[in-house]
């Protein structure tokens, strides 16, 4: 089976979408897999051809302002315009968002469902994962264990559907980690250290921009 994975993160380097694609790989090995990164694509026909003739398309991307980021949206429009050689392509999505609740990915999942309909493809399933920025901190914890317990179970379910070309109900999950702790850690372990690295004091993060040039 030919599987094309589209990393829809606008980040050229490491990304949570890339991490989630990595989690997927062991479950779908043995298939012909091609991976693309939307932000590195030049929209040439050479790059589009394998996508147009694949059996399965998997989109992994972050949630931007409740939906799909503009780079991926441009790519989807272009892909629909070019059409597909294989009319029986199944589409699956893994969406991660910065908020705690994976449920907040449901609108992006609907947009992907609408895109499938417009493009004449079969919508398989979406896995929406919350607290995406926290996932790299747990990357050394095996899937299905501790904070990665629900993610492991959900990825396994998604992969079963991918391999059998089945459709499934969308899955929305959050890491197995208390929300109040995640909220505190987001400031203390994520935003403050990064700002400090840039030479900024904490109160500077909340400043207003007064110059509009």
């Amino acid at each position, binding site marked *: 089976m030919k599987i094309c994975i589209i990393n829809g993160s606008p980040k050229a380097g490491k990304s949570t979408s890339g991490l989630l694609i990595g989690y997927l790989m062991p479950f779908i090995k043995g298939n012909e897999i091609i991976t693309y990164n939307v932000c590195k694509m030049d929209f040439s026909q050479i790059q589009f051809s394998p996508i147009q003739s694949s059996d399965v398309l998997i989109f992994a991307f972050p949630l931007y302002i409740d939906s799909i980021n*503009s780079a991926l949206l441009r790519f989807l*429009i272009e892909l629909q315009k070019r059409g597909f050689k294989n009319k029986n392509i199944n589409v699956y999505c893994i969406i991660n968002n910065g908020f705690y609740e994976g449920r907040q990915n449901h609108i992006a999942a609907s947009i992907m469902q609408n895109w499938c309909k417009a493009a004449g493809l079969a919508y398989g399933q979406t896995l929406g994962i919350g607290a995406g920025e926290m996932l790299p901190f747990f990357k050394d914890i095996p899937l299905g264990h501790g904070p990665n317990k629900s993610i492991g179970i959900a990825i396994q379910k998604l992969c079963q559907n991918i391999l059998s070309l089945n459709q499934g109900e969308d899955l929305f999950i959050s890491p197995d980690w208390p929300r109040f702790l995640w909220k505190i850690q987001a400031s203390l372990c994520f935003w403050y250290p990064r700002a400090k690295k840039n030479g*900024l004091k904490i109160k500077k993060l909340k400043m207003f*921009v007064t110059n509009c040039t």
Partner: protein
Amino acid sequence: MNILIHDLSNEQFQPLFPRIDKDTCIISDTGTIRHCTGCFGCWIKTPGKCVLKDEYNNMGKILSKAEKVTIISKCFYGCYSPFVKNVLDRSIPWMLPFFKIKNNETHHKRRYKNNIQLAVHFYGENTTEEEKETAGKLVKANCINFYVKNYEISFSKSLEELCGKVSAI
């Protein structure tokens, strides 16, 4: 200040809106906008301002002066057009990186305290009922994240139809 974000070409825009209030700030597609790269520089490097060097790097500040924001966008799959979505993606400096709980969901705290009134006018000949439903949910979710209390949304098959629905800008 009123803000109009649209994806129309000059040829489409001029006849539809020949007179624009001088207090209206127009954000249109000059073909130079860069994609948000998710670097969070607007939160942790130059707080409130995007680090990308183009004419759209001060959306946070522009939105901070807004009383009313009008969006005119072609509807794609229940989402905005790529340009309009690009502008919104570049608008996160209006918010802070920190979180708060609203209606049992986490959302970003706001950097600025101005209350925005939002009007979104989608157009497109072939917008399906499912796409309209998705777009409705999207605008509602955007309103929660941008602390918008009052909003309106419309769908038009053509620009002529849309013109009659857009109130004074």
